[in-house]
């Protein structure tokens, strides 16, 4: 599985949503599942997927599908 596939899976698992809607443009608070509560499930899922521990600031900054990729790439050396 590529890192992108893993990343998409983390969203599917973490938020409990369909694969179709996990794509560029998806933003925090844009769907009911990605609210502040869902966000915690998502972070946990991403951390587990990539075996990382995210910094608090990054957890807060991860506000969209795109932004998450950028954070993982620049701060956690995960190449997409």
């Amino acid at each position: 599985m590529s890192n992108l596939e893993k990343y998409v899976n983390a969203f599917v698992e973490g938020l409990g949503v369909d694969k179709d809607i996990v794509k560029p443009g998806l933003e925090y608070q844009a769907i009911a599942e990605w609210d502040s509560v869902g966000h915690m499930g998502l972070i946990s899922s991403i951390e587990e997927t990539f075996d990382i521990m995210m910094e608090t600031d990054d957890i807060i900054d991860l506000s969209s599908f795109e932004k998450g990729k950028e954070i993982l790439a620049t701060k956690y050396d995960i190449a997409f």
Partner: protein
Amino acid sequence: MQQEFDNVTFLVGSKDILMQMEHIPVLPIFSDKVREFLAILSDELLHDKQAKQFGDIMAYAFWIRGAAIEKVYTKYVSETHRIGRGIAFQIAPSNIPVQFAISMTYAIISGNISVVRVSRKNFRQVDIICEVIKRVLTEKCTQLKPYICVLRYDHDESVTKWLSSICDIRMIWGGDNTISMIRQISIQPRCIELGFADRYSLAVINADDYLKSDFKVVAKDFYNDTYYTDQNACSSTRLIIWIGNQIEKAQKIFWDNLACEVNIKYKLSEICGSEKLLKTAICAAKHPEIREIRQNNAIVRIELPQLYDDTMDFKGNCGYFFEYATSNLESIVSLLKKDCQTVTFLGETLEDDIHKLVDLYGVRGVDRIVPLGHSIDLSFVWDGYDLPITLSRVVGNA
């Protein structure tokens, strides 16, 4: 002991497990078994449909998630030869539903066997978490089964007495009355006891730094520090100290922004208006110089011309704030007494400044100094105790 358990409900564990606890080996701190259990519990809770309806359960689950615990573990990894003390008997508070789970987490991460007595109030959160704990213990972490009991019982001193007589750690979360009542019941000579009593907290804001910040974010942060728990947790800010040059300007913007946040999110109980008016009347009778500023009943501010020693005797909740403006941070020292728990800050140099005050004056209070918005963050250091250390013992070699 048999008949004493007739009125005990086991939310997790059983009578047999409880009776065996004295003979169960303790674990090292941050043992693999416990870390694994917490990670699975976190995962299950974060994906549980019912649990997702409760922000406080989610916050707890998030706190114990695998990656987070691993990170905390790195801080303690050098603590070799540290093991649990034995049975940790904990009495959970009646107003914070998830506190029992937080307390249990402290107990088991330190290698102990955990017995928690939860309040007689039926919180959905307690039932949901206990169901999931039970499931995890039965399906995945069977080895930990003998280590965890969660019980509920009515007016039954005999159970409290028995548990007190066998425990090695007694932790009491609650008000001063609760603690002193339970203290009447004796414990073993070598048992350690921690009382997590009523505390108060305050915020220090540098007006000039505030004016450079994102007002909306600060309003959200402050809301989380206060209204999120009805401003009634120990960590809730009751008093705001303003320092800096442009205090008046900052206050106006601060309260206006908070009002927006409160109007959207906060459900004000009907009784609060008269409750707060009463507080003001009582406080004014003692300190006639105070002034009340009532934007509406959700935000009531009391301007203090000076800091009274007994200011906190008049503290309110659900949005009742004392405010004091000063050019001299040292004037707050009189408030940093035993009962003072958390000082939140907003300002570039404030963290250092407040630490310096604490050190310089050797004050009895202040257990945490955290940025504004972080007062309810969960932590393994609480009320001045580094819990994995306090709740464990070290087998020395010198």
